[in-house]
């Protein structure tokens, strides 16, 4: 913003609102983090106090790492999230390209049909999905989760990506066709790099719910070897006793990978690489 249009009051107000929002958003995370480093008594005595020499304890982390196969859960969550995102982006982008690029009968109807899933929560079909997984023998496999999450993510992905694909210059695609590139090469080499920011948006939107989901892991893959991190953390929450140290430590560790993935995608969100392709 240039100097002439800068108003100190406006700037202060804008920053004030943003800082306030950041504090509100980060506060729960902060509380989880500090309490994960405290003894059980200290957590209950003063939940908002920072850990000091007396209350500092790693007991939560020790419990988590000893009890249950935490690294396996971690690995399961990672596999499910990354694989689901991969398929959502791949199939979503392909469907979006077809809808945006080709004129065929029922194009609009197909687009609406694919977007319908945004309005209908997939959990309504849980019983049917479970029956399907049982009869196809996929219960207690990560494949079951990946399939469900891919289905869950596709509608929004198709909807967002097809809008962005329409904005990619026709001339560029046609130049590729005249130069003899196949439709697949045009899609992967010319169009996908130009819609990277949109892909990153879709990835971020889909990643968090998948990583945090408890519902489908509990129903479709509750076996020890297929537990996800969220489900694995539940062992510490009992009907009568809850091991808060362990729960908070598990949650703290679960935040990390999501943050790393988010940082990777958010850089793409900002990067604009369209410049120079078309005027």
């Amino acid at each position: 913003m240039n100097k002439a249009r800068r108003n100190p009051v406006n700037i202060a107000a804008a920053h004030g609102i943003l800082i306030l929002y950041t504090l509100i958003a980060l506060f729960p995370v902060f509380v989880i983090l500090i309490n994960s480093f405290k003894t059980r008594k200290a957590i209950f005595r003063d939940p908002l106090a920072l850990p000091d020499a007396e209350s500092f304890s790693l007991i939560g982390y020790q419990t988590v790492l000893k009890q249950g196969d935490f690294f396996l859960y971690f690995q399961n969550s990672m596999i499910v999230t990354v694989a689901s995102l991969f398929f959502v982006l791949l199939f979503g982008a392909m469907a979006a390209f077809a809808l945006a690029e080709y004129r065929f009968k029922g194009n609009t109807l197909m687009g609406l049909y694919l977007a319908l899933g945004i309005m209908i929560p997939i959990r309504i079909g849980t019983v049917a999905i479970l029956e399907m997984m049982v009869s196809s023998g996929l219960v207690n496999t990560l494949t079951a989760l990946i399939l469900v999450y891919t289905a869950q993510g596709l509608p929004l992905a198709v909807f967002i990506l097809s809008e962005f694909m329409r904005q990619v210059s026709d001339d560029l695609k046609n130049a590729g066709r005249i130069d003899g590139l196949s439709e697949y090469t045009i899609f992967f080499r010319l169009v996908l790099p130009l819609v990277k920011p949109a892909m990153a948006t879709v990835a971020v939107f889909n990643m968090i719910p998948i990583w945090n989901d408890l519902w489908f892991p509990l129903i479709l893959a509750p076996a020890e070897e297929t537990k996800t991190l969220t489900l694995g953390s539940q062992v510490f929450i009992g009907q009568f006793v809850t091991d808060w140290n362990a729960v908070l430590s598990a949650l703290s560790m679960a935040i990390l990978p999501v943050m790393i993935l988010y940082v990777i995608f958010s850089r793409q969100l900002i990067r604009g690489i369209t410049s120079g392709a078309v005027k």
Partner: protein
Amino acid sequence: MTALVLRNICKSFGKVEVLKHIDLTVEDGEFVVFVGPSGCGKSTLLRVIAGLEDATDGTVEISGKPVNDVPPAKRGIAMVFQSYALYPHLTVHDNMALALKQEKQPKAQIEARVAEASRMLELGDLLERRPAELSGGQRQRVAIGRAIVREPQLFLFDEPLSNLDAALRMNTRIEIAALHRALKASIIYVTHDQTEAMTLADKIVVLRDGVVEQVGSPMDLYNNPANQFVAGFLGAPSMNFLAAEAVGGTSGQTLGIRPEHLRITDTGPLSGSVTHVEWLGGDTNVLVEAGEAGRITVRAFGQYDIEVGAPVALDFDAAQSFHFDADGARIRG
């Protein structure tokens, strides 16, 4: 041999007919310009020739072979787009080499052709840059280079100059004309700018609403337009049209006089007052409000001191005027 033959080309999108029964022949080495107002179907026709759109009816022949079922890459054409459409992830060199690589040409030949094209277009210093690091004019030259290296039987230009500023447009126009002379290539060039059409073309095809209005050399079209639309479209400032009655002609007819064929005199068949004057240095455009004849533009060569509001009379040579009937068709004789 003929570079391109179009026979009865029709194209419709749904119920909208965009191209209606177009027949056209382009000779080898000819520079043909499609010109017309926006929405007249000229770009669609170019895309049908390129194979990017299928014609609803009719046949396209390139170098004597029907190519209706041949994909764009195998038609022996190269195209330059309005938005340049360079591949953003490739360097200038790779942009030009890509099509040849796709054709599986030997590497030495690819390098030779890219070198030759970059020499012609003075792109030598830019070969390792990406499109984002180039100016508009440079990008356009790369787009042209990408077409040249393919050594096509037919070049297609889709409004290649409309994104450039006025000075650059003129330079590039001259370069394209020089390129045509050097390559002796057959070129089809689409534009809505009549100046580009007049200066570049061996043959102009004027299109309106998907119909070919007239085909001919630029001077043919200027001196002998087939109808009121062609007469009004070519020439700048455009031709004056006035009711023939105003100068004692037949009622219902329209009289067309080019601004450069009107003279400002003391007495003449038309009279009125000056409403605006444009001094361009070399010539002076005078806008005259001439009563029932309406507003008339006069292009006077040289510089004149004319005041706004001054009463003037206009004279013209009957031999340099055109008559059109109520439907816009030319009345000869």
